[in-house]
């Protein structure tokens, strides 16, 4: 039933949205209430508790277990986290990881998006779907699949390369990181390609015609007009990719089951997980999580500031 009951008094026509009458005034608050409540409980509160917990430690009082009292220890947990060379090294590792993975992935995504936007390929729908399909594969499953493709006993790829006289070691100490880079590139290139492609589609077509009349060929058109026009989208995807890199967890955690060359504290999140669960030290784990949060925040602020400046310059 959609007809409004005519008996009700028609409310004053709201001239402006500044003045709101009773129900109107309450409505937005009621509508946003569930989100705000959940936001406070599961986003703000965890952060507050993690920060609080990070200043405490369980003091072993006397004998036996279970007899632990939490006591304020100031910055002890942070000192301990900074003194943990494994934890610090995990940051260096993911930064190196990102320094390779993000540019390579974005270049592939950008090149594919430009190709899809040009008239050079037919069957765009199929190819776009095949590039994007890995997005539907959970990263744990992606890592499991690639894990099999890296293992000499099962992998047809290793077999193929051996047939060509190469003996690849995908899981050796020096190469396992690049194997991980490959898994992540496989998973996320499609999403980034679609974002860049979508933004290419919004570039006014007249710009291309003008350039063509001036005699620009397709390559120059792509590099000198298309790429600058979609820079904001590229920077946005860069930002999200780098933040994602810092959080790396699913893929290395999964690949750990087939190689001993990924340590339990290979990435910051893995170190946090290890300390919290196996180490049983919730407080130290919280301090480490706070540090990762701060690092993420600083990085994203620096990057968005840099990208804003770049955007300003490009216009």
């Amino acid at each position, binding site marked *: 039933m959609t007809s*409004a009951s005519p008996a009700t008094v*028609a*409310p004053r026509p*709201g001239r402006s949205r*500044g003045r*709101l009458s009773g129900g*109107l*005034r309450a409505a937005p*608050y009621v*509508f*946003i209430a569930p*989100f705000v409540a959940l*936001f406070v409980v*599961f*986003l703000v509160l965890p*952060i507050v*508790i*993690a920060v609080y917990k990070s200043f405490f430690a369980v003091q072993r009082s006397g004998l036996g277990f279970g007899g632990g009292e939490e006591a304020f220890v100031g910055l002890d947990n942070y000192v301990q986290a900074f003194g943990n060379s494994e934890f610090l090294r995990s940051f260096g590792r993911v930064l190196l990881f990102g320094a390779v993975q993000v540019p390579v992935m974005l270049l592939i995504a950008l090149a594919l998006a430009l190709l899809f*936007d*040009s*008239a050079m*390929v037919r069957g765009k729908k199929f*190819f776009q779907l*095949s*590039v*994007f*399909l890995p*997005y*539907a*594969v*959970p*990263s744990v*499953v992606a890592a499991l699949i690639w894990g099999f493709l890296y293992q000499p*006993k*099962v*992998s*047809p790829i290793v077999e193929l390369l051996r047939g060509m006289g190469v003996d690849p070691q995908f899981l050796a100490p020096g190469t396992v990181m690049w194997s991980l880079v490959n898994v992540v590139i496989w998973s*996320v290139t499609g999403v980034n390609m*679609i974002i860049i492609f979508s*933004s290419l*589609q*919004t570039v006014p077509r007249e710009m291309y015609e003008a350039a*063509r009349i001036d005699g620009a060929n*397709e390559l120059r058109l792509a590099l000198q007009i298309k790429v600058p026009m979609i820079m904001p989208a590229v920077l*946005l995807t860069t*930002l*999200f990719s780098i933040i*994602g890199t810092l*959080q790396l*967890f699913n893929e290395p*955690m999964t690949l750990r*089951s*087939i190689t001993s060359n990924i340590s339990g504290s290979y990435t910051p*999140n893995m170190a*946090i*997980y290890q300390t919290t669960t196996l180490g049983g030290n919730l407080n130290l784990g*919280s301090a480490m*999580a706070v540090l*990762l949060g701060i690092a*993420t925040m600083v990085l994203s602020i620096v990057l968005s500031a840099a990208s804003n400046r770049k955007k300003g310059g490009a216009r």
Partner: protein
Amino acid sequence: MTAPTIVSGRPASTTPGKPPKPRTTAEGERPSRGARVIGWAVMIVTAVYFLVPVYWLIVASTKSTGDLFSTPGFWFADFHLFQNLADLTARDGGIFWRWLGNSVVYSGVGSILMTFICVITGYALAVYRFRGRSVVLGAVLGSMLVPQTVLAQPIYVLLVEIGLNNTMLGVLLPQLVYPFGVMLGFVFAGSAVPGEILEAARLDGAGEWRIFRSIASRLLSSGSVTILLFAFIGSWNSYMLPLLVLTDTRLQPVTVGLSGWSQAAITIPGLQTLVIIGALVSIIPIIVIFISLQRFWRSGLAAGGVRF
């Protein structure tokens, strides 16, 4: 604080009926034969790279454990798929199907609730001007940059405090906070719900809830599917939080269960076949959803930029 980069795309809801027409760069543009050959070559290499792992998974799922190690990986051997499925079902009293069911609950129920919350919040932020609006908008934008995994440990600590660790609710509730979805809802509502319709409905005496339920939610249905899709995929993919929170294997989602099997497979050789068939089964629902809802993710990405 508004988001110029985020609102720049073409919103989904403006094309409710059919997908946005793919626009080639120009008519009359005819690439040379050489350019087309290069284009084809690049596309084929690309498609092979992105499809081969999934193809391998399909092939491997049809093999017995023995054939997995002894026959060429990229081609079929004796067809063993149904036996593998039977083994999968038999293992630990059908725990795999339980995991899959859990995933459906976490992601299905979770994403439906998530979508409702995102749409109604985004709608409220888009159509009303009220005190505190800019604070909420700012919080949504700011928290879009906070990845779920950075919160996993703190959420776990909170759940331990309130006694919800190792419960289904402990996994279900935290994921309902989905700022990216709220942002999408906000963008969609801003473009798909004209103010005049709301005014007209109010003149007819409709209350605000009724306007949302019978007018706005319909105008936003296409956008809602987009949010639902992203929420579902994101949730199906989630791993660190359930891994921390759930120690009872019977409550785990399929990602956690499978990775557990993968760890155990070092000592139990037959388990590898089950990891493979399980991985295949676990991605089938999501790939089906994904391909059948193509136009929605395309428009969603166009409108949003994305959080993985």
